[in-house]
């Protein structure tokens, strides 16, 4: 029998053509995305880069654009995110461990799971309102009102679902054979979790937490709702200190009429982007390093 068959070949050509068309469309899609991003970067960098300097990083905001800097916003962001991590991660990871390893399967657990997934999708401004109601007003005797502590607690609530979901995914990805191997050796459940599940899930958990931090760094709405200030000429000096963060500072500058403040905003955006990108790079690097240690 001959391999070549004219009727079949003409059909085959049409089949191949369809594949190529789809490939072209997919390529176009990614091209549009990348071009837009590149354009955005180009725009920001060209308008902001000249303003970047050590002074810009180490000065407080000012009414004069040329003397204004982002020190208080940068410090506020760092303090806020660090404080948030202290609250969110132990609780989030703990919840994930409980849900994956201990919780009995049943309607209640299912309900909790569905709700956590839903919470991750709730608009951040709602968290701002919640934070305002609970942490800034109700818990004012503790938090001192619209303070760094209240902000960190609010942000902790905001990122908690993301942390829980990421940690659960990571814990769930631990092969059951490893769990069985540990239990088969006479390990208790906690020995199994401590000895094998957590080390194995660590890269995934770390990635999740770093992404949560990135998200928190970029959030503006809940903090504005909570009442973070827009003009803060000092570095926070305690949990009950007032504060601002980078996105709020940027927002503030963008809304000014003067062109020079817009340049400041662009420069601050470059700083924020640099921080975010390096956090993501760190996440990727950590994941790679842990996986390598684990696998070879």
């Amino acid at each position, binding site marked *: 029998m001959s391999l070549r068959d004219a009727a079949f070949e003409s059909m085959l050509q049409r089949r191949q053509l369809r594949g190529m068309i789809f490939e072209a469309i997919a390529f176009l899609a990614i091209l549009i995305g990348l071009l837009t991003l590149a354009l955005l970067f180009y725009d920001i960098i060209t308008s902001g880069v000249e303003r970047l300097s050590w002074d810009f990083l180490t000065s407080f905001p000012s009414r004069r654009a040329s003397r204004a800097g982002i020190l208080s916003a940068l410090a506020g962001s760092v303090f806020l995110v660090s404080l948030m991590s202290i609250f969110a991660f132990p609780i989030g990871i703990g919840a994930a461990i409980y849900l994956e390893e201990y919780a009995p399967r049943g309607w209640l657990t299912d309900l909790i799971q569905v709700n956590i997934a839903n919470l991750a999708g709730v608009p951040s401004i709602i968290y701002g309102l919640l934070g305002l109601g609970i942490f800034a007003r109700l818990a004012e005797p503790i938090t001192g009102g619209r303070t760094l502590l209240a902000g960190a607690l609010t942000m902790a609530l905001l990122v908690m679902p993301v942390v829980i979901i990421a940690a659960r995914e990571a814990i769930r990805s631990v092969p059951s054979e*490893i769990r*069985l191997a540990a239990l*088969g*050796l*006479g390990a208790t459940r906690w020995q199994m979790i401590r*000895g094998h599940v957590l080390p194995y899930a660590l890269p995934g958990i770390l990635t999740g937490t770093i992404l949560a931090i990135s998200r928190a760094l970029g959030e503006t709405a809940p903090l504005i709702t909570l009442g973070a200030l827009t003009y803060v000429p000092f570095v926070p000096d305690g949990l009950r200190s007032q504060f601002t963060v980078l996105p709020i500072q940027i927002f503030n500058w963008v809304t000014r009429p003067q062109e020079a403040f817009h340049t400041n905003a662009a420069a601050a955006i470059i700083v924020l982007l640099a921080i975010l990108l390096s956090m993501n790079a760190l996440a990727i690097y950590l994941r790679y390093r842990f996986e390598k240690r*684990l696998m*070879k």
Partner: protein
Amino acid sequence: MTSQNIVQFDGPTILKAENVAVYYGDKQVLRDVMLSVPTHKITALIGPSGSGKSTLLRCFNRMNDLIRGARVEGQVTYHDQDLYDPEVDPVEVRRRIGMVFQKPNPFPKSIYENITWGARINGYRGTMDELVERSLRRAALWDEVKDRLHENALSLSGGQQQRLCIARAIAIEPEVILMDEPASALDPIATLKIEELMHELKENYTILIVTHNMQQAARVSDYTAMMMLTEDRNSATVIEFGKTQAIFTHPRDRRTEDYITGRIG
């Protein structure tokens, strides 16, 4: 409905199942299981897929406890102690009755740590180096890995990984080793090595092995239990038990005969 084809072993037995039934939720998967596992012998569980071999195996170290909705009825004893007594902690059971799984599952840690972890959590007081060497020697792996003890266990070949899992199991000094198709993921040479190893191990341990490979059951085991779905096809049980040599040359139960000659299953 114990069949006359279940010859009770008359020597010392270490594990015993009496009228064991296992349910997964509402579904009954095992019924009326009678089985005595002879001490320091290799006993093979054979039977078609879905005949509950692994389920029965897991009754003996309470691994079924880990499956949600699993329930074991009847009596499972170890040295005449009820393994399912409410006083008995499954952790204690698994320390005495070790397990080797179908797919080699070393921990993604060093070879050395794979051996020591189980011993450490069980409170082993002795020199770890000695324990590692002794366990690896018993598992016929020492010569192959003695120069790379601190390399990751996942860098070993499949057959070596499985022998490491056996070494890991014997490092906590169990009396019984349950093996769930330990060679089904291995090539024929690695399989033969595991089988050779089993022959050596039975001097010190009692082995209960589930296998799909009848030639393997015939090669390695002293006793064989044949499992099969009952008439109504809802649940399975042991239909014949006896010396391996007798089962493979002249089984008494027609269904065993049909299964091992490849006519059903």
